[in-house]
């Protein structure tokens, strides 16, 4: 006698938990009833991401690197599940290796991106990179590699993220959320909202507590999203879905320069 499989309910990922949309709505994607997040869900996710920022950016870089490496470990154990929702094992492996690559950057960024500045006067002067803050990401395709390529550089630098999943391929983002939830990523560092782009993208682009915006995965009216983002001078990034670069990390970092006199 055949066994009836237990299906998974696909929900949002906010503050380390998996709630349904506050709106109670779902939409049909990849043969599943996927949570159709609302603007209010976006606002809640931003609030939580903002709260999570202090602890995540205050963690030592070494620790943040270990957490990212742990994400790769969790992905490795769920290769089959992840593969089922993207183009296959090759994409999964490349994605895992990319997370490992970024994990190693955590405690090298300040040395490569920062500087000691030889000013003409008796001052000690240095520049250090710091996270920008809450970052909105519109997930690009390919579903898993694109997701990882845009998310990892944002969080490795100490930012927290609100990620709007691919509208047509949302399930892999929830699979990834399950890896994040079991990888010691503190609750709220990554939040994932599934739903319709036309509702969610303007909500994240216009939110005044979102300080950076990755529109690499934007497919609609990019100009309008950028205009909304300008209202609080967001750092807006349109990169490549398949890139792997410390410059992608730097795009979500601020540079702080500190001066102090030298004297006895």
């Amino acid at each position, binding site marked *: 006698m055949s066994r009836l499989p237990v299906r998974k309910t696909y929900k949002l990922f906010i503050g380390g938990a998996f709630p349904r949309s506050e709106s109670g709505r779902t939409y049909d994607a990849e043969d599943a009833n996927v949570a159709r997040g609302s603007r209010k869900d976006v606002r809640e996710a931003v609030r939580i991401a903002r709260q999570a920022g202090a602890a995540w950016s205050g963690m030592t870089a070494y620790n943040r690197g270990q957490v990212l490496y742990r994400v790769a470990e969790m992905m490795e154990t769920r290769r089959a599940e992840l593969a089922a929702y993207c183009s296959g094992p090759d994409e999964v492996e490349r994605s895992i290796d990319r997370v490992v690559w970024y994990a190693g950057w955590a405690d090298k960024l300040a040395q490569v991106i920062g*500087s000691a500045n030889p*000013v003409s006067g008796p001052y000690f002067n240095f520049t250090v990179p710091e996270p920008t803050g809450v970052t909105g990401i519109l997930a690009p395709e390919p579903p898993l590699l694109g997701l990882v390529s845009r998310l990892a550089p944002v969080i490795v630098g100490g930012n927290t993220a609100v990620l709007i999943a691919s509208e047509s391929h949302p399930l892999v983002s929830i699979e990834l959320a399950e890896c994040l939830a079991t990888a010691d990523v503190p609750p709220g560092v990554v939040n994932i909202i599934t739903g319709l782009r036309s509702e969610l993208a303007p909500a994240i682009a216009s939110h005044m507590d979102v300080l950076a915006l990755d529109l690499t995965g934007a497919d609609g009216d990019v*100009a309008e999203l*950028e205009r909304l*983002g300008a209202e609080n*001078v967001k750092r807006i990034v349109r990169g490549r879905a398949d890139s792997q670069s410390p410059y992608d990390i730097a795009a979500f970092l601020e540079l*702080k*320069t500190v001066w*102090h006199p030298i004297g006895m």
Partner: protein
Amino acid sequence: MTKDKREVAHRPETAAIPTGWEYSPAPESREVVHLEERYGLFIGGQFVEPLSNERYTTIDPAREEPLAEVAQAGKADVDRAVKAAREAYAERWSSVRPSERAKYLFRIARILQERSREFAVLESMNGGKPIRESRDVDLPLAAAHFFYYAGWADKLEYAFPNRRPRALGVAGQIIPWNFPLLMLAWKIAPALAAGNTVVLKPAETTPLSALLFCDVVRQAELPPGVVNIVTGDGRTGAELVSHPDVNKIAFTGSTEVGKAIQKTLAGTGKRLSLELGGKAANIIFDDAPLDQAVEGIVNGIYFNQGHVCCAGSRLLVEESIYETVISKLKRRMRTLRVGDPLDKNTDVGAINSKQQLDKIGSLVQAGIDEGAEIYQPPCKLPERGYWFAPTVFTNVAQSYRIAQEEIFGPVLSVLTFRTPDEAIEKANNTPYGLSAGVWTEKGSRILAMAQRLRAGVVWANTYNRFDPASPFGGYKESGFGREGGRHGLESYVALDDA
């Protein structure tokens, strides 16, 4: 120093202070500056008449006297300048070897040093800033900026590991009136070093040093069209921003205009860097060296009449030393000499324009209306010209407009705090994030505060220091991109895969 000793050292507010001293006038001669009656636009290596046929008069704000007529560039003029810059980029500048590019910039640095007195006097005449400041800050820094970036021109690949940096093309640059020549240097030096050509629009009220700079360009024998200067008001800037053949816009000015520019460029893929407003906190802890801190407070807010985006316009004083700091500050304010910008004894010069004077006046009135307590030292302001006495507000609530909005004038708002956490909370409670100051003798506290302040520049036990090697720029609504240092190059290069 123990607290007791410090109190002994502190003289009460009533102590005799040398406010009664008379200084003989020590004016710098204006003879060194030779102004034309009217200026055209500098396009393609020569001055041309504006196609718009519109002109306006630029004045000396300290005397309200006309200095020269300058062009109000229109759409066709901006187009002509961009075309000249494009042609120069394609046909001349991009084939100049980087090491030769460097030498042009070194030449410019040297010529600025050689002609620094002329530039300093002109800067003070057209902008109202004290000659001591033009002479000792603006000019040396402007020359140093060209010298610094000159050296980068043939070393760009070392600035961007694993990338091939290349120029963007034509950069449109719009600068403010508070440091006219220095802001020009901040814009043009890195742009040229990276191999771009530029169209620069100086501020409406301070075009003359940029127009004199055209003569430096001529003397340096820079190929025609590499640097183009178009004068005019905000309309000229808007034409430059929306011109389809400009690859990059660099803007320094108000947050309001910065947002409008970002919106205009939305979706175009053009590169943008913004250096916008600020409302910096200058934080004084009870263990700070108070006399030095008071100098830092004064330098922080009264330097350049407070026309400084990174001015320390919000003073945060630890409650236990509040009375002492305020009394020392008021005492020091009474020694500030306000007046003729060309006088070498002047500390605070003229307000840059009538419009800015009105803005400062209305915000100060708002401060009084909202219930803050105003103090201005007795000082005799000249009858002609635009002047505003150094001003400090106490009893300021965080919600007051004078604690929230950028005044861009010699007006300080004082708030107090009890704990470092409260200081951080108040300091960061603004949409801006350009700069901050911290005064304390405790090293670990300096670093903790520096880490937690959301600002692009933190001055610890000093304030308003600038250097071409030191990156400058904001967090949050103070803009993005850095000027100065290796990081300042990033705004002017595209990074191809190696």
